[in-house]
């Protein structure tokens, strides 16, 4: 690469932490905090159900539960059947949801509503606490459902 004028200002660890909301499958990036599905249900009902339907089914936005198969004439892709990592839920909900007011939930609420979505997909129990330690250890049903096309060596 050609030489640049080096105008970047060094970013401090605090500045980075203040912006970094990426959550990786190994749990790195998960903040302190925790929540259970039982705590998540009222959050879901208050700020999610209007678009995603009661218990994740039947709303104007995509379904968040409902089971089904990935094969056959009408495959059903949803959190329970398709998503490979539970950490993705935390990452996505914290950054993007609820659609009308993103970043309005605190981290506990995000843990809790994540737990609730895992519950209604029959992945965890009502009282299992989701936190930086437990969430990455949740094994999603479709964990091994993906074939990585890139780089162009197909790994099955």
């Amino acid at each position, binding site marked *: 690469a050609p030489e640049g004028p080096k105008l970047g200002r060094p970013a401090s660890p605090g500045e980075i932490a203040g912006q970094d909301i990426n959550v990786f*499958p190994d749990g790195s990036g998960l903040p302190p905090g925790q929540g259970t599905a039982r705590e998540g249900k009222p959050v879901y009902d208050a700020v999610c159900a209007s678009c995603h339907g009661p218990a994740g089914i039947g709303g104007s*936005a995509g379904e968040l539960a409902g089971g089904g198969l990935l094969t056959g004439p009408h495959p059903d892709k949803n959190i329970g059947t398709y998503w490979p990592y539970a950490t993705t839920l935390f990452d996505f909900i914290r950054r993007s949801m609820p659609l009308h007011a993103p970043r309005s939930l605190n981290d506990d609420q995000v843990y809790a509503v994540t737990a609730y979505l895992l519950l209604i997909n029959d992945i965890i129990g009502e009282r299992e606490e989701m936190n930086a330690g437990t969430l990455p250890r949740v094994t999603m049903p479709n964990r091994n459902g993906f074939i990585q096309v890139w780089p162009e060596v197909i790994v099955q």
Partner: protein
Amino acid sequence: GLSFGAGAALVGRPFRASADEPPPWMKTPGEPFTNYGVPSPHEKEAIRWISANSAAPGNGISWTPLHKLEGIVTPNGLHFERHHNGVPQIDPHRHRLLIHGLVENPLSFGVNDLLRYPMVSRLCFVECGGNSNAGWHEEPIQTPVGYFHGLASCSEWTGVPLAIILDEAGLRPDARWLVAEGADAAAMNISIPVEKALDDAVLALYQNGERLRPENGYPLRLIVPGWEAVLSVKWLRRLQAATGPVMARNETAKYTELLPSGKARQFTFVMEAKSIITFPSPGRHLHGPGLYQISGLAWSGRGRIKRVEISADGGRSWAEAALQDPVLPQCFTRFRLPWRWNGAPLVLKSRAVDETGYVQPEREALIAERGRHGYFHYNAIVCWAVAADGSVSHTYG
């Protein structure tokens, strides 16, 4: 004598007009100059067609009207849109790009800083991974071609090679992926292999000469040439270097292709070669037998288009179309072919071949390989049925 003026009679000689009455716009001064021009009021149909979520007007897509366009450039006002939660109106003085993670020197750049960096320009397409996906439908969709294949546009993008910035930040050897994030209300994030980032990704600041449009990422957009557009993160605010992908919702739940086996293809990045005939096409019919020029667009995420072939007999024979110069890598390429229509019904199709030798597949072959539930990366040959009355409809051939 001869006189003139309001109410003055022309005395003496008869009025002589050597020419016909000209149209009204030749008889009165025209409109004044404008600081920033807009299309003719007679071209009101050349618009992006919006398909948004009625509960969330900023969630959806809008299509480039490829059936209204010629050449290869998409004017900025008509570049397709895909927003997850609307278009942020960003104050460029409050926008920065943060690079952190597996780098020696985490850095933060203001937009004005980036404007001082070495830049490159390139004409290239940007295509949504979900473009053309009506092709998976059981029944052929009947819509103008832009509202079928117009989640693809082509612009001259100018900006800073991402490699320069990564160089300054000092990528660590174990950094294999970059997680990019946008400053929109979806904070859209996605992972990009470091190899591609270093190869040809650009921190774009300009589109077709002027600064980016808000809906295309103002003030800063990542452009990842030839790869599915979800990677070309708009409103770019952050790049985190990491050992692996973040496994974001948009690289797991979406932008992956479910196969008949129940397994799904992930990290399907390259937009494979595609071609579409834009004239004739549904809504752009023929007016009786005679000579026409077939015109269309081809592109490939793997490089240059090498050849476009056209069949007017449903695929039995093929003729090679002329490619308009310059033929550029990962760029729309306009193809054209003179064609005499005898008035008989027939099926027109086009087939693109790129410089790697990849041949655009027939729909049956694509479906045989991928099934019918992949949703993304539909690039099969498109067939137009020309009826005896000159009307054109989409057919599966």
